[in-house]
């Protein structure tokens, strides 16, 4: 079985779990967790996209027999995306802490000053 397809399938599953979490949870912290799951699933999808059957890590060295490498570009993209995901999560949590200090709750049903 092709490992790449497995990674893509599991990643898509995680993406769906993450979206479900963001849409249905009422607690701000759980929404942020949903985001992290979504993000991680997406990273798995992208790593899976770069997989080549029978490929090894793309490092050239002397006496190399196997000339099939996995695609390193999605891996580089995922590294960048992890950093961006860190920034997004950090900012979300920072705002969540401030919201807790002002409203005294994490429940989004209680946080509704803006309407119309």
């Amino acid at each position, binding site marked *: 079985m092709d490992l790449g397809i497995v990674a893509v399938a599991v990643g898509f599953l995680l993406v769906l779990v993450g979206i479900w979490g963001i849409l249905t949870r009422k607690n701000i912290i759980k929404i942020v967790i949903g985001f992290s799951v979504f993000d991680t699933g997406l990273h798995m999808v992208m790593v899976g996209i770069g997989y080549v059957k029978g490929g090894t890590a793309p490092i050239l060295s002397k006496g190399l027999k196997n000339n099939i490498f996995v695609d390193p570009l999605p891996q580089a993209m995922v590294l*960048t995306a992890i950093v961006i995901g860190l920034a*997004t999560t950090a900012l979300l949590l920072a*705002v969540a802490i401030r919201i807790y200090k002002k409203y005294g709750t994490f429940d989004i049903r209680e946080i509704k*000053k*803006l309407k119309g």
Partner: protein
Amino acid sequence: MEIFVPLYVAIPLGCAFIGSIIGIFSKAFSRLFTSLVLAFMAGLSVYLILLQKFPIVYTVGGWKAFNRVPIGIYMVMDGLSVYLVTIVNVIGFLSAFYSISYIKRFTGENYYYSLFSLMIAGMNGVILSGDLFNLYVFLEIAAISSYALVAFGIEKEQLEASFKYQVLGGISSLFILLSIGLIYWYTSTLNIADISRVLSHKSFPKTIVFVEIILLSAFGLKAAMIPFHAWLPDAHSSAPSPISSMLSGVLIKAIGAYVIMRLFFNLFAISYSIAYVITVIGTISMVVGVLLAIGQWDIKRLLAYHSISQMGYVILGIGIGMLVISKNGNMDIASLAIAGGLFHLFNHAVFKGLLFLNAGAVEYVTGIRDMKRLGGLAGGMPITASTSMSASMSISGIPPFNGFFSKLIIIIASAKAGYYVLSILAVFVSMITLASFLKVQRFTFFNNSGEKWSERGITIKEVPFPMCFSMIFLAVLCIVLSLMVFPSVRDVVLMPAVNVLLKSSVYSTNILGY
């Protein structure tokens, strides 16, 4: 010339870094430094527009294409990019200059200017990037700094608006990343020009339709088109006023509308179904946005809803152009529609930026945003009142002002293309816009029926010089931009941008050189 292209990203990034560190010791430094840097960049953009040598392609690190595979990251400045970059930097400079007085009452000024410069760097990067993944990275820089800036006041409303904006914006960013992954899977390249070349050699599969739909909804959310608009009124009305004017004036265009144009004209082949969807979304935004706006009493919230409606005009113009091209219709009509859309994009940046700065000036003096409690400010604040009047006439399409001409071009183009219903709707929306701005003028600046300001303990006086300067500059631009209907000006400023979209098939040849 090539060296100027990466400077558009490097200079604001450096400014953000230096400003946040030296700003700890000297507040005056970070204030003046950001304005000076952005003034330089705005001047540079105007110079490049007048230079007329497009496209300028810069390859990061000097990696040239090998075996017809582009290796390095491309930064592309063509007619459309330079047009958008000029808007971003001119409005950015004026907002930063306005902030000199306005942000004095907040703490952490150096961080404000640092985030401001980061946002400019991100938007310039999105506009100049010729590489999809790089576009995503710059988009996140611009988006994350805008999330932080919306929450800058850290009151209840700001935090709630920022959280809502972050959740919706974050979902759309992740969908953009997903679709970039899928595009890479299908074409094995990330360069926009190269993707368009590869796609033109392949058949048109279901994968691309799926990717197009994800991208349209994700960037539609960034551009606040109607089914995805819920975050905009909260975020744009809660942010500090110079930031509202940046968000409404520039951000939704640079990371929303611009990317939609670039992707659906230059990257994917133009198809009738997508053009139809874009036109419908634009029309719905135009109509529903204005209907939601007219009942508002919070002045900034009203302006925010008008942003949705006016962006609907831009998308409508672009969509009609796409429809005409996809049906192999008359290219002159397509050119007219796209020109109207792009012209309205610039005009909206100017007058909506000005209106938010006016609302900020009113809030700066009185501390009130509710129009029911305002009134009679025209005597005490003549500059704010007169600039606000010119912006209101501009947005509602009164003849000598720029908004009239761009709306007229869009209406004529849609009528010529045979979509009479759309042109009637555009006229109708323009009339409701006029009504709603008559309400703003009457209840904010004229009607003096409420209690006297002196009884409430508020002295009405004109705002300080930096705020006045920005408002007067933008009010002058409101008139000067109508010059763009004249052929000699139009050919220099507007037509290069229109031609990039119109001759969409030669884009990849121009950039890659083969």
